[in-house]
């Protein structure tokens, strides 16, 4: 199996680290080698967060080169834009439609329509879903990450590396695992329909 370069991006506090760790645990259960370069410290305070997840036997370096990301999982649209330069020409994006306004006075943010047009114009395969909205309906906005993950497994190349069963096993020790699993299967079903 060839190497897979995944970026997990979003805003500090959205569960980016958990999402990338669960991908890693699941890959490990499948006997795959993983490197996850995490963001800790300062940027966790509501700043932009980017985690590099690399899966494959002959990977050595922790960071994904610009232009070589195969799959981006994003929990926020402005952050999707911010890291587009990592995407390769055949890259796939799965992004939440959520927009979080950076809490700085008088900041100007692009509109939803502008962002969507920009993403479409890249020519990349882009999947948009209302993960945070659905997660909120399920009872906890923080499980948006699992909706994104479930979706990516059923509708992108991530499904070749990890499957729902290995994710469910990896969730065993997580507090609130029932809700996480519910969100995961919800995302998975969205992806199948797609």
């Amino acid at each position, binding site marked *: 199996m060839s190497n897979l370069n995944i970026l997990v991006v979003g*805003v*500090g506090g959205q569960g980016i680290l958990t999402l990338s*760790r669960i991908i*890693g*645990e699941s890959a*490990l259960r499948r006997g795959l*080698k*993983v*490197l*996850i*370069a*995490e*963001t*800790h*410290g*300062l*940027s*966790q*305070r*509501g*700043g*932009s967060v980017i985690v590099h997840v690399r899966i494959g036997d*002959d*990977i*050595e*370096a*922790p*960071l*994904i*080169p*610009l*232009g*070589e990301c195969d799959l981006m999982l994003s929990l926020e649209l*402005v*952050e999707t*834009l*911010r890291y*587009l*330069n*990592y*995407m*390769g*020409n055949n890259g796939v994006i799965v992004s939440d439609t959520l927009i979080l*306004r*950076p*809490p*700085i*006075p*008088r*900041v*100007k*943010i*692009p509109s939803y329509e*502008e*962002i969507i047009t*920009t993403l479409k*114009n*890249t020519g990349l395969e882009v999947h948009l879903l209302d993960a945070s909205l659905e997660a*909120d309906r399920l009872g906890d*906005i923080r499980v948006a990450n699992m909706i994104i993950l479930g979706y990516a497994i059923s509708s992108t190349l991530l499904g070749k590396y990890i499957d729902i069963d290995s994710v469910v096993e990896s969730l065993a020790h997580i507090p609130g695992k029932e809700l996480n699993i519910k969100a995961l299967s919800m995302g998975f079903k969205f992806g199948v329909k797609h």
Partner: protein
Amino acid sequence: MTYEEILAEPGSTVLMLGNAAIARACLEYGIGLASGYPGTPSSEIIEALAYASRKLGYPYVEWSINEKVAFENAYGAAISGVPSIVAMKHVGLNVAADPLFSSAYTGVESSLLIVSADDPAMWSSQNEQDNRWYGLHAYIPVFEPTGAQDARSVTLEALKFSSDYKHPVILRSVTRVSHTRTNITVGQLAKPKLYGEFKRDTSRWVLVPSNARRLREELIAKWDKITKDLSDNPLNTSEGPRDSRILVIGVGVGYRYSREALQRLKLLDTVRLLKITTSIPPPKSLIVRELEGKNIAIIVEEGDPVFEDQVKIIAYDERLDTKIYGKKTGYIPITGELKLEDITKALADILGLNYRVKSSVRVNIEIPPRPPVLCPGCPYRSVFYAIRRVIKKLKVNVVYAGDIGCYSLVVNPPFNAQDTLVEMGGSIGLANGLSHTLRDSIVIATIGDSTFYHAGIPGTINAVYNRAPMTILVLDNGVTAMTGHQPHPGTGLDALGREARRIKIEDIAKASGVDSVLIAKSFNIRDVESKAELAIREALNGKVSMLIARGSCILTAIAKSRRYKVKRPVYSIDLDKCRACTICYNAFACPAIIPRGDGKASIDPRICTGCSACVDVCPFEAIQSIEVVDETWRGILDEVGLDSE
């Protein structure tokens, strides 16, 4: 964060952070003591060991008051024959530099491993210093894991080396080693050595000049032997054809980037690749052996060109004319972290190959920045909101001598309340000099509680004794928040979660002779305003005053509310009362308060923490809670520190 994986079954393969792998190695070696002061990217080492110690009952683990004391703590244990480690971020070693140098003179009786986690690219730091220089400077060997992949095995070897040579060893990690998670296969835990004995020997442990002169001679001889022996250390390996004309030297994490870059360029079979793990002192005979017959040598390392310089010195001494490339020759950037695309390109360019960095997707749209900000409900928001109002009212010029912690984030608008920020403790320190030399401004030194204990006390005493008028604003949220809520001497818990006696900041201030010491509730804007005014008036009268703004970090307060099942209020805006004055979202700038299209405010109930501070901000009383606010919740907000679970 929990660290269950650190106690994984021997032989199993688990996903582990590089820092956890370092901690696991300490348990497999059988260390008896670990100490540290928090700092990104090092903190998880002590956290993981504390987790293990709670479960196993050993080793002894502590968060010390600062890096110097943490170092001396481990040094003392190693003198008594107990294998020990001390962990800190790169700049922490500056604080601990004094005992560091002495430790090489005296040596130790068992392992003394100094973990320095460097932060290239300065993700969470004020500088990009490369602590391998300390190894050269202080005559202490430096071992560098090449990634999270071998952080465990290299730590084990470093501990063993330190004990074999009775000499301290620096383990130099970097962000991408410490904070990378990967598959790690773990070994057996060893029986720890928890107790030692002190072998009295004044000729060795007492560095009076007569002893130190002799010990320096011995140190130089020992350094020669260490240099020789490291050339045969199995941690340094080579691959690829010996008779190649090209040598790539990958040092520490540089090895991973060089290996993958060579793989991408399909050069692994034609180029000789040397992996260096023990970079200081440079393993001389190994390098000479590998340089012989090479036309080109390329050195890939993260940080300063430390190893590159060493190789050049060796090549000069040995009259080798290999052309040496690295950071000083312009191919590899000297600043920031290594990047795979840069290293691939550099190797290709030096070797005259054609390689183009992949074109990346570019878009034509302005992307707003998203800097880190104070959390919704952070006690500092109301404190600085109040202080700014007092300054406006008193019409004084003020210089905010700032410091490092979450409160540094008020450097940004709308607060703009950090005029300097240089190092931990630098607020009160610089305020001394500013106070003596500025005639038309008052100086407010802002400092966090953990930072006050760490390095603020000498500056305070100095200001009192040498009469440097100022207001010291101590932001007491009960924890070391920025680095992950580690305890400090005011928290009430130790590293293992056991109750500890609190040492109160106000007691220290009073004992230091501070002219007036005031305490305000951080979430209560009126309280902060009135006390800040008193404190600043004192400074204007030539006194040293201290205002302790006390209020819980909202994250620990929320955790307590969950544990004690206390309901937090949710606030909302009464749109009939809101007049779109913009104060709450522009001047108070809570992330939960969001402007609507018509300029009125709205509160996102998913973000609002119920801290209640904003109620006093609205001049029109439009901010209200639907339910009556639980008094227990107010108590949790006003009280600082952690409770044992």
